[in-house]
């Protein structure tokens, strides 16, 4: 376990090193001068030059990279050009939206996909299965934003059950904040549930042909026990992989849905920061996203070890 942790940490640092170089290079060559954007098109060359010097934009590639990494490593952190506050604070406040949104979305995804996947597998090729498969096909073909808009139209505009967007903030209005996340999380979750349902079904069908399932039946176990204890625990192992990927992806922010629902999450933050050429914010967020994916991966590994005794964390 200790060895495993050390290995993960080494992988994480190598990954972050390459990601930092990649993101820095891409943003470096990207057209669009932050100073110009801040000062507007009427700025004089002198004020522009002054601001560029102040922001360190006139230094060499290496020097700028060292500045950036130096700030991160020393704990000083970088400041947003646009808001003039530490990027750290920006990320943290966005994460307070994106984190719960991602988790809630995965909760929706799991509570829909598991029961329907099991149901479909047990009725393979019969009407119940065909119906479930039809809806998953629909889910796979539905764009997130479209479902999001549809939900707003139906549940917010038409029935007035939810607000149509915006986020009051956890400290101001806890329940209101939670409620604001339900529709977007549902939209994100239901679409991910489509893949997970199909995966649960096919994985379970495969496991049901295994010899140990025949053994379980030969013992006279109830069908319930055979399915939910003997089969499902095995069938969930591949499902967990995709679930982890989805969660990692959601933790990095759901740009489109956050924009549809006006949620101040990571996706919106990075979206705006790119538009404003707020380079320190973009760089730090991309690094953070890479870290988040690795961390989720780590949690998935722990779950693997919990499900499958043959997996050793090394």
């Amino acid at each position, binding site marked *: 376990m200790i060895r495993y942790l050390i290995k993960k940490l080494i992988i994480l640092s190598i990954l972050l090193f390459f990601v930092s170089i990649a993101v820095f290079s891409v943003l470096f060559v990207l057209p669009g001068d932050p100073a110009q954007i801040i000062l507007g098109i009427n700025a004089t060359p002198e004020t522009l030059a002054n601001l560029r010097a102040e922001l360190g934009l006139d230094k060499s590639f290496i020097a700028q990279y060292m500045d950036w990494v130096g700030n991160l490593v020393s704990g000083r952190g970088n400041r947003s050009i646009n808001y003039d506050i530490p990027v750290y604070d920006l990320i943290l406040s966005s994460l307070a939206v994106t984190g719960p949104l991602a988790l809630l979305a995965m909760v929706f995804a799991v509570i829909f996909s598991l029961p329907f996947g099991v149901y479909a597998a047990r009725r393979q090729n019969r009407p119940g299965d065909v119906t479930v498969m039809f809806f998953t096909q629909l889910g796979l073909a539905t764009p997130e934003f479209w479902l999001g808009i549809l939900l707003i139209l139906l549940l917010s505009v038409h029935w007035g059950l939810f607000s149509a967007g915006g986020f009051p903030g956890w400290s101001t209005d806890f329940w209101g904040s939670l409620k604001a996340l339900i529709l977007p999380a549902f939209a994100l979750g239901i679409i991910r549930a489509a893949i997970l349902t199909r995966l649960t079904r096919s994985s379970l069908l495969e496991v049901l042909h295994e*010899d140990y399932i*025949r053994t379980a*039946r030969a013992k*006279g176990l109830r069908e319930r*026990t055979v399915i939910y204890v*003997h089969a499902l625990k095995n069938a969930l192992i591949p499902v967990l992989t995709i679930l982890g990927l989805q969660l990692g992806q959601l933790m990095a922010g759901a740009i489109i849905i956050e924009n549809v629902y006006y949620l101040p999450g990571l996706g919106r933050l990075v979206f705006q920061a790119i538009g404003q050429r707020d380079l320190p914010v973009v760089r730090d967020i991309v690094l953070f996203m890479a870290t988040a994916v690795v961390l989720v991966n780590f949690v998935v590994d722990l779950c693997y070890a919990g499900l*499958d*005794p043959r997996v050793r964390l090394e």
Partner: protein
Amino acid sequence: MNHSLLDIENLSVYFDTPEGVVRAVDGISFDLAPGETLGLVGESGCGKSVTSLSILGLIPTPPGRIKSGRIKFEDRDLIGLDTENLRRIRGRDIAMIFQEPMTSLNPVLPIGRQVAEPLMVHKDLTKSEAFQEAATWLDRVKIPAARKRLSDYPHQLSGGMRQRVMIAMAMVCRPKLLIADEPTTALDVTIQAQILSLMIGLKQELGMSLLLITHDLGVVAQMASRVVVMYAGQVVEEAAVTDIFDQPFHPYTQGLLKSMPRLRVRGDSRSQRLNEIPGTVPLLTEVIRGCKFADRCPHVFKRCRQQQPELFVIRNGQRARCWLKSYPERRTT
């Protein structure tokens, strides 16, 4: 026979496959008395496993289906028994051990739990009582440090140990009938001997019946009192074990005996090749008018290709599906 524990009558099991209907089991009958050990032998693919699985209603349907027949167990027909009643028989009255110890145990559940499960469903034992009993059984099948092993997972055990776990799991409810489908085929020779002697010991102790499926006549000689020989989904010969070895009637049985390594030696040079029956088993999708063994039979004559022989009585307790009974002069060499 009224006193039999298991009585299979005219059982046919078909599989609907893209290649056509596979007649895996085609009208077989045999019975098994309480306490008896019956050997069911035949080449790979002749329908031994399908027969044993249909006893417990474990044929995957579709593609499989029971075409016809009766499987009487203690005056109840298991075919057509509702799932709930069948489930109560499985693991309690009839238990089964499978060929592949590597894949027959659930890889993600501790073996203690897997052995204790039949007790919890059939005997209403509490979890701790069942685990207690499971530990006792693991001990009886000679798993060292049984109590400590309860929380082990299958991958931590060797093949032989896993088969011992399978035996313990099958025995915990003290079944009246144990079906062992090639219990030692996947194991190496020394382990085979240990597992067989373990089964002999347990059988004597509990007095259960044993349906022993194998293609190893040596195992049959050691364990069984009566033998049923299957070929291409049919019973071709049935006899007491001594008669099978001393005076086999069916050319297929004779071929099987010749291919047995141990009986072959007798002064011959050791390098002599295993005497296999030439030819291959017919496709089970074909409908064959005559004897199914005709293509491989050294004594084949006209009648064999025209009409299927019935199971003729050869002598008391011995029957064979062969026209040589009516035409003994046709037996060459």
